[in-house]
């Protein structure tokens, strides 16, 4: 599911975390942009799971291995450690049960890569604080009543969930509004405030 409206600045960050020839499952593969990038630049053995039939058909027509399915329901059919990497890119917030989905990702992949829009970003906070309205930003272009996003979290929330699931954060990157990485030396509160998107590499 392509939940995001603008350019996917996180895709390259995700791709850089994946070594060539890995076995990758992309959960929520959308139109297949990430899989195609990984296939073309990293020669990965890539598979996709995508909710929308339109997205799936587009992916298959592009020569990608993608099946129609729901991250909330269908991950149970994948074997333990069947992939080197399982990617959940800009999809976590649209799942019904993010905790269960994350748990499944850590079971299916040796590593899980999760990217999501940070609801702790200052613009979001400002919008709610000043205007008293749910934020509509370039990153989160939907109105509250027609958004596919039902479980927003902040970077800090996500880190807490990882702890709860016994997942180790191997790498974490926050991207600012311009898609630039925020320096690793910065403290969590800074990331949580200025990071518009976050990319996590997890293992259990």
């Amino acid at each position, binding site marked *: 599911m392509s939940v995001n409206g603008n350019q996917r600045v996180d895709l390259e960050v995700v791709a850089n975390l994946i070594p060539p020839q890995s076995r990758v499952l992309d959960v929520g593969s959308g139109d297949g942009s990430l899989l195609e990038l990984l296939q073309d630049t990293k020669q990965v*053995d890539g*598979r996709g799971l995508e909710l929308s*039939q339109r997205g*799936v*058909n587009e*992916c*298959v*027509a*592009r*020569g*990608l*291995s*993608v*099946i*129609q*399915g729901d991250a909330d329901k*269908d991950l149970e*059919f*994948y*074997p333990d450690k*069947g992939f080197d990497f399982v990617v959940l890119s800009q999809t976590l917030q649209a799942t019904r049960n993010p905790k269960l989905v994350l748990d499944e990702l850590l079971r299916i992949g040796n590593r899980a890569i999760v990217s999501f829009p940070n609801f702790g970003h200052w613009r979001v906070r400002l919008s709610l604080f000043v205007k008293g309205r749910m934020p509509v930003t370039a990153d989160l272009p939907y109105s509250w009543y027609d958004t596919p996003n039902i479980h927003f979290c902040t970077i800090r929330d996500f880190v807490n969930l990882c702890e709860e699931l016994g997942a180790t954060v191997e790498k974490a990157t926050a991207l600012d509004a311009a898609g630039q990485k925020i320096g690793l030396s910065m403290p969590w509160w800074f990331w949580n405030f200025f990071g518009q998107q976050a990319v996590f590499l997890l293992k259990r």
Partner: protein
Amino acid sequence: MAALRAGKTNNEADQPSSPVLRFGPDKPLKLDAGTLLSPFQIAYQTYGTLNDARSNAILVCHALTGDQHVANTNPVTGKPGWWEVLIGPGKIIDTNRFFVICSNVIGGCLGSTGPASTNPATGKPYGLDLPIITIRDMVRAQQMLIDHFGIEQLFCVLGGSMGGMQVLEWASSYPERVFSALPIATGARHSSQNIAFHEVGRQAVMADPDWHGGKYFEHGKRPEKGLAVARMAAHITYLSEAALHRKFGRNLQDRDHLTFGFDADFQIESYLRHQGMTFVDRFDANSYLYMTRSMDYFDLAADHGGRLADAFAGTRTRFCLVSFTSDWLFPTEESRSIVHALNAAGASVSFVEIETDRGHDAFLLDEPELFAAINGFIGSAARARGLTS
């Protein structure tokens, strides 16, 4: 077919108007029923050229009442091949690029050994003396045909409905010989509802007084009425309510009022009667019994201890499954359960569900999304196989 009607025998069964491969007593076909079929023959068609590496061969598996004439004019009906819309020079399955093979399945009536073929032991048609043929038997015979061409690994095996069952059986029985597999509008087993419809068809055939316990050729007859009824019932399952309604509704046929009788007042009646009549011209009644039985017996999970995933354990074949939203013979759920099993087996699999109201038969029609999926899948498999266009 004129020959079928006039001679009351089926000339195509023994001497087909297509190439035929004959296996003598030294090469019997081992049947699931526990017996050997020997001698036996397979009729087939090929299109395109096998490359030097023998790596560009595509096996097309036909459905229940299909045949080997997939991309050439059918010698019996005079109509285009049943998948000519898909296969040919410059088409989605480009015969300038690929070597396409399609065989008439064992149990059929267009040149592969079936109930209409002459039983060498008696000099008469086999009739019901032919052992029951399973999907696996058909595939075993196809495999002997592929051996004959010296092809170690098929680039792709594809087919719809019963053809899709053969694709699944191929991928399960001979995984190392199938580089990619494309089962369309099919299932890993025949549901009880499907078996029920087939039983209606078989009972219709066997209730026809001209059936003569299956020995109708010897009586110079053919159970045409029974077979036509069987086809009419089956044909309904190939369509969808929406498609039927759009096409026919309750429209009357060549009249503006009801006759208050049992003529074909409605267009749908007249359409089904036509379907039934044209079918008996080209198909053998006993063969219909055998073909339907082969589908009924198919249960790939049962063949592997009840776990479908075990049918594909360790497979390296690339799969793409296709289903249609309005197919009630093989609904999407059937494909989805195969996809789940393939995932559990760690297989490479794509799955496309195509939105259409044309029902099960959509796989035989000009469906742009189907063609886009096949094109994308075959193209990417060809790149992976190192086949350049």
